[in-house]
């Protein structure tokens, strides 16, 4: 059998809305129980188990604390796993993507740090809005297509946020 459900590991019901502070607290309790440091003096077999359990716990935690990864995971629980790079049938968002990217390129050329900060702010707002919309529809089988579209948008914005970080690093030289 595969690994147990990430949510169950934390004693939670699968849901998109997660109390992150509570998740972090439970993560720390569980990590205390299974971390290899707890078994530094135990048998080799127990050390290996601790390593596997800890790795699994860390993976579950990383998945659940990130909104796009949590969303993707929820959809994989209730159906086919989403192909990573599907052709995006989402012309409206495609257009928006182009705008975001153009703007980011301009910021890079002008090395405008305040502009980057404002961009980040707007990006965060867009991410929150997507999260809200996903929370509304993910559990409704009739709205599966909409949920999948939203996850792809979330993934794109996540990638964009990463690019902003790289840009900040470049501008820091």
């Amino acid at each position, binding site marked *: 059998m595969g690994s147990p459900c990430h949510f169950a590991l934390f004693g939670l019901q699968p849901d998109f809305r997660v109390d992150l502070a509570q998740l972090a607290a439970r993560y720390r*309790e569980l990590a205390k129980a*299974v971390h290899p*440091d707890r078994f*530094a003096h135990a048998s080799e077999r127990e050390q290996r188990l601790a390593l596997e359990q800890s790795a699994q716990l*860390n993976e579950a935690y*990383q998945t659940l604390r990130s909104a796009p990864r949590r969303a993707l995971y929820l959809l994989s629980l209730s159906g086919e796993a989403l192909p990573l790079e599907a052709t995006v049938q989402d012309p409206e968002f495609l257009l928006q993507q182009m705008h975001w990217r153009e703007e980011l390129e301009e910021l890079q050329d002008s090395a405008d740090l305040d502009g980057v900060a404002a961009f980040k702010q707007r990006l965060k707002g867009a991410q929150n809005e997507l999260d809200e919309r996903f929370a509304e529809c993910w559990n409704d089988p009739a709205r599966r297509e909409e949920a999948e579209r939203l996850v792809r948008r979330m993934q794109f914005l996540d990638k964009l946020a990463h690019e902003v970080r790289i840009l900040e690093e470049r501008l820091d030289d």
Partner: protein
Amino acid sequence: MALLQIAEPGQSPKPHQRRLAVGIDLGTTNSLVAAVRSGLAEPLPDAEGRVILPSAVRYHADRVEVGQAAKAAAASDPLNTVLSVKRLMGRGVEDVSHLGEHLPYRFVEGESHMPFIQTVQGPKSPVEVSAEILRVLRERAEATLGGELVGAVITVPAYFDDAQRQATKDAARLAGLNVLRLLNEPTAAAVAYGLDQQAEGVVAIYDLGGGTFDISILRLTRGVFEVLATGGDSALGGDDFDHAVAAWIIDQAGLSRDLDPAAQRQLLQAACAAKEALTNADSVEVVHGDWRGTLSRDIFDALIEPMLARSLKACRRAVRDAGIELEEVEAVVMVGGSTRVPRVREAVGELFGRTPLTDIDPDQVVAIGAAIQADTLAGNKRGAGDELLLLDVIPLSLGLETMGGLMEKIIPRNTTIPVARAQDFTTYKDGQTAMMIHVLQGERELVSDCRSLARFELRGIPPMVAGAAKIRVTFQVDADGLLSVSARELSSGVEASIQVKPSYGLTDGEIARMLQDSFQHAGGDKAARALREQQVEAQRLLEAVQSALDADGERLLGEDERLAILAAMDELRALAAGEDAHAIERQIKRLTQITDAFAARRMDASIKAALAGRRLNELEE
């Protein structure tokens, strides 16, 4: 030498007896060993009362000298005296020439790509040189604590890559140390500070040592030390300040840059002395040969500015990686001798907008934190409720080479360890039956800009059309930050895996030879050593199983299971009292197998208990 303690057969040592474990800070310039004694972590002094051991090793024809005396001979016997060997750990011959300095050694290449230093005792690898330092510290600890060590926690710069970590672990093995854990230096410092001051919240540890720089951002919550991000430069430290001052002297004195090794060492010593004097003075007289000049603090500050700027940039990146703002950092802790430089303290204070903490001696804080962790890992329980847990991260992304010479990241930097992650790849040619797995570490996109950790081949893939085979590559990083990689073709189950033996590490043959040498050196013979190792291993396992039985035997085992385990334990105990190393080894395997299911049940139970405890607390709240 202290006598080994052996308990009567069938009796485990008294439960209240402390297991001896130490923390070792194996530094570029200085090394220390510390231990928890009567509840207090402190560095252990040598016979003369000195706690700091200069990381200097001098080879004579018939003996090896480590520490102060070796350091003093650096200028008179430069070819046989190795300083700052940490900078060479886990590096290849070509890396060494890129360190940005002239090293006064004659390098020769070994079987592996590691640079060996030619000495009067023949070629020595950086691993062997480091092992000499560790051996002296081990002997000091055993003499002071009065017994054999259960193990040691050895600290490494957080920014050390896999090859540098593996090299450190190999050195410990050569020195006869059981490594309980490789611990990142800033994390160790955080433990020393956090426990001392009962700190909570986000802290930054700025660690500038002799040869390495680390910045770590941690969140401290009720005894849990969670590293949010780490960064740094494994070739930036106080040594570079010395080199900058030395270059200034050369310019000022109109000297040739082509100095012989002895003159170079003298020059560096003068530079280092000037740097240290400037900690408390505004200017210092520098004398080198016939030349005499004045180095002011302003000039010195200007000389180190580029290096300081590099370190501050790494700080800003680590804060971004942690996903926080600079203002959220509630405390900044200074670690490493180079943080005594006033300009360093000032610049770090400006960046974080608060005065850095320097309460604990920056040279000792890492060893003290390591000692606390060693004590915990050795099984010496601290008070209930204040359990300590360190959650560390990998400093550099790990990945694979894909088509077109690109690096595909499998585990991004700052991922919490331990971690296991798999990714599927496929073939690109029809009928392809083998695949080269090239393991890389680094942040850049091009393979040529990343560090090559290892290469291995997966063979015997059934011939299929291009893109049909599915090869799953799994990366696993353990709590020491060490990587192992396995690859499997999913339809046929063909498998290949390696414990990543870094390209710049020692080959197994080299390690075997060095171990052999060290036995001869110690005057022991190999068979006796092997027997002793099995006996220690048997003892360790017996104690582990006994404590598991005491805790959960009644609850989680059926009567038959319990009796079977007890019988296997008795047999192992009897064998361990004899002299057949192979028989002991076989019985260790048997006992391990028999306790397999018990171990799994215990793990499940402890997860359930952790969750249940949590819920209970929440109800109370």
